[in-house]
Structures are given as C-alpha cells and as structure tokens.
C-alpha cells in the first residue's frame, strides 16, 4: 500500500494535466458542433473534397457527420490518441524512472519483492488511467448534453468511450514491456511518442482496408467507432487480441523486471 500511495502521488500532476488537456480538446470540438449542424451541407461538401482514405483515417463518416455520435467519432479519434500517449508514457516511465532518477538503490533494497514493486506501480498507473477516463467521460457527457441538437444514446457514448480505456491498457502494457528491456531508459518521450504515433499512422494507412486482417496490426483499428455506434457492441476478435497483448506485455514485464540486474550509477 505504501508503494501504491507513493506512486499515485508521483502520477498526480501528470494525470491532472492529461485530463484537463483531453477535456479542453473535446470542449473545443464540441464548441463548434452547433455551427457544423447549422451549415451541414457546406461542411459535408468540404469533407467530401477530402480523399476517402483521409476521412477514414480521421474517423469521419459522411453519412452521420451531423448527428452527435457521428460528430463525436471525430473527437474520439483525437482523444484516443492523447489517451494512448498518456498510457504509453506511464508504462515506459513507471518502472524505468527508478533507474533514471537513480532511486533504484533505495527502493530495490527494501524488504519487498520485485513483483510487489511491479504490482504497486502497475496498479497505481491503472488507477490514474481509470480516473482520467472517468473524469473525461463525465465531462464529455455534460458537454455533449449541452450542445446536442437531438437525443443521442448514452449507452453508445459509454461503449465508445470505454474503448479509450482498452487502448490505454494496451499501450500501458506495451510501454511496460518495452521499458524493462532497457538497462537505463534515458528519455521516455521519444520512444513513447514514436511507438504510439507509429501505430496511429499505421492505423490511418490501413483504415481504408475495411475489415481485412491488416487491422490487427494497429490497436487504433481494434475499436471501430462506426461499428460501435451502429451495433452498440464490440468486435469480439479484437477484444481477444487486446486481452492477449495486455497479458503478454504485463507478464513479460514481471518476468524481465524480476530477473533484471540493477547496476550502480557510477
């Protein structure tokens, strides 16, 4: 518990910043929703002038762009990207920071096992990610209610936003697993941004290819907003692959971190 509390404390500031940033970003888009609805024809025309692949990459569907859910799909794509970066940074930094800040000689000689350390840190990151998502969801819901023209499905809204947490779990696990292979990870930002943006761009590139197995290559394509809106459910096979990635990433982190040599600083 002491380690868990300590880690929560260390993540507090970053979590506040991420949450506020995500809400502000969503707020910005919600702010222009009424304008979009008012000039639906013009807006659709502009979007139509984009190539189909760009629209797909941005999560835009012309058919329902002016409905609240259709419009939110665009916001969702951006928020999911932010949330994934946040989770990846937490994942790559939470274990590696002890070596980076040279505090490993403090923590790792305490009478606790390496697994207990990983568990406390993992749980703290997870708590903060869930907290981020819950606060964001509530804020987004309020914003959506404020600007909506017609009623929308709160259930569908929840289902869609829940996938942000799924994406975060995936990237948290990937981040953890990557970080344990470095003796000392000097800077987590390049690797976190690189991996997340890499998958994002990959996702955008394969976005046009419908339901082909290429979708498995990028977590950003596991949860298709249009599908979720239309069916109010997830595509099961992608839930399975997500679970598998999380299990492998976390499992690998426990094993590798447990066996890792922690070298002196000088």
């Amino acid at each position, binding site marked *: 518990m002491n380690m868990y509390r300590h880690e929560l404390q260390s993540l507090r500031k970053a979590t506040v910043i991420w949450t506020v940033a995500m809400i502000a970003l969503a707020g910005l888009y919600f702010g222009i929703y009424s304008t979009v609805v008012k000039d639906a024809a013009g807006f659709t025309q502009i979007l139509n002038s984009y190539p189909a692949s760009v629209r797909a990459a941005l999560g835009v569907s012309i058919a329902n762009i002016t409905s609240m859910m259709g419009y939110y799909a665009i916001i969702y794509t951006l928020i999911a990207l932010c949330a994934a970066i946040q989770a990846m940074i937490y994942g790559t930094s939470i274990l590696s920071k002890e070596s980076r800040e040279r505090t490993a000689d403090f923590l790792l000689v305490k*009478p606790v096992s390496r697994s207990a350390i990983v568990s406390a840190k993992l749980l703290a990151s997870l708590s903060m990610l869930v907290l981020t998502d819950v606060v964001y969801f509530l804020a987004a819901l309020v914003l959506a209610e404020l600007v909506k023209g017609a009623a929308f499905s709160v259930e569908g809204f929840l289902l869609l936003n829940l996938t942000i947490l799924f994406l975060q779990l995936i990237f948290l696990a990937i981040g953890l697993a990557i970080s344990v292979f470095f003796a000392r990870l000097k800077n987590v930002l390049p690797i976190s941004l690189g991996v997340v943006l890499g998958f994002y761009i990959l996702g955008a590139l394969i976005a046009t290819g419908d339901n082909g197995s290429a979708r498995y290559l990028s977590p950003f394509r596991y949860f298709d907003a249009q599908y979720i809106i239309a069916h109010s459910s997830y595509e099961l096979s992608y839930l399975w692959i997500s679970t598998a990635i999380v299990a492998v990433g976390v499992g690998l982190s426990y094993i590798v971190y447990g066996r890792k040599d922690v070298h002196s600083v000088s």
Partner: protein
Amino acid sequence: MGVIEIKNLTKNYGKARGIVNVNLTVEEGEVFGFIGPNGAGKSTTIRTLLGLIHPTTGTATIFGKSCRVAPEVRKDVGYLPSEVFYYDRMRVMDLLMYSASFYKKDCKRRIYELAEVMDLDLTKKIDNLSFGNKKKVGIVQGLLHEPKLIILDEPTSGLDPLMQQRFFDLIDQENKKGATVFFSSHILGEVQRLCHRVAFIKDGAIIQLEKVSTLQENNYKRIKLQARGPVTNELFKFEGVADLKVANNTATFIFKGNINPMMRTLATLDLENVSIVEPDLEEIFMQYYSKES
C-alpha cells in the same frame, strides 16, 4: 552460521570482468572491512548480496537467505550506497517516513535522534540539498529501522571530517548494540579505525583476508634510515623488503618477516638516524598491490 555468507560467487558482465569466485563469511557482531581500489568489484559483491544483481554462479546470503528468493530478509538490513539519490521532489522527512513504512515499525523517534546527531534539516526538499547533506539523508535512511546488518559502500565520501567522526561514532554504537557491519572502502584509515577483519579485493578476486590486528601488529615495519655514508640498493636485497626508496644517504622501505637479520644488516651501517614504526594499513595495502601488479 555467518550473518553474511558468500560462496564461490562469480559475476560476469558479458566479456568484462565482474567478480571471480569470491568467498566471505561475516560473523555476527563483527565489523568487516572490504578494501580495494575503484573497480575492483566491491560494489558488485555488495549489490549481488543485496539482490540488486544476479550472480552468474555461486551464492550470496544474508541471515542464511538469498535476497532474491526471500526479499523480506532485507528488513534487517540497512544499506548506504556510495552515491545517494532520492526522490527529488520529496521533503527529507517525507522520504524518511516513506523509507520507514517498509519496515512495519515506528521509526519516528529514531529519525529525530539520527537527524539531531547528523545535523540534518528534515524540512528541506531533497532537491535543494548539497551532496554532503544527501549523504546524511542516506545515513539516517540506512539506520532508522535499527538494522541488524549495516552495509556501507564507500560511506564517507562527501562528508566533512566532523560528520565523518559522528558517523563513525554512530556505526560504533550500533555495533556495540549488536549490529553487524559490512563496510567497503578504498580509504584504509577508515577501515583501520573501525574494522575487526578486512578482506582485500583486487581485479574481482579476494587476495587476502586478515584480522586488522594481525595486519598491524606482527608483520610489517616501516623503516627509515639515514647513514653517514652512501647507501646502496644491494644492501636491502632480501626477502620481505618492499617499497624500497634509496636516495644518497637515506633509505626507506616496508619490511615484513624476521626482524633479526634486518637489524644485523642495519648494524653494519654507520647510522645517523633510524626510525622503525608501524606502517598504517594504507602502506601495507599499497605494498601488497604493487607486488601483485
């Protein structure tokens, strides 16, 4: 059973040498010195002992258990690393309380006592502390749970002489209360002052293990002489002479062995002055090393 038992411990770092076949036993209540130049393998040995790194072969146990298998044995261990780094954004007291929270006992009174002795300001942020003050945090952090085994890795660097003295007094007190101390250093004066036994490590291997008293009492003499006529190297060419320096009419060297033939040799000279003193450990150590290398 020893408090620390290291058996055939070897650690390879790829092609680079770590430590080779180290064997050590530290008995309860002992102050054990671990001496060697930088890079000899002192830290590697200590870090393996604490479970920070895995041995390639062999075992290192504390109270009969390996830290890797039974991390809870570390509850009776206090460790002061050679370079101390703590969570920069924390205040000293918060850090110490966090450290204490791992030991499931109330350490508050002890923290205040130790901070008083070491003259440490508990309200400051770690970030704003000087190197010496960080070291003090490390000392308090290592001792606050009254460990039965204290492991010190080059503990005095960064401490001014007054604080070094207070620190040694603290360690001495803890030892008198029953704590075992394992103390690595490259400064021999420190070890001479505190330790009962000392192991010399060089290039990853232990080259000698002796009682400090044996080292000092019997074997070695530092001889310095000034003759009325020229002195030659040939005169001192016998077993046991080391670190020989001859210049004009003077000669200095360390001598180990039967003192009688040496005295007879000296008697053949027409001496102006002679001094025969106990060399300090550093000199013995340097002599030993220069012979090895």
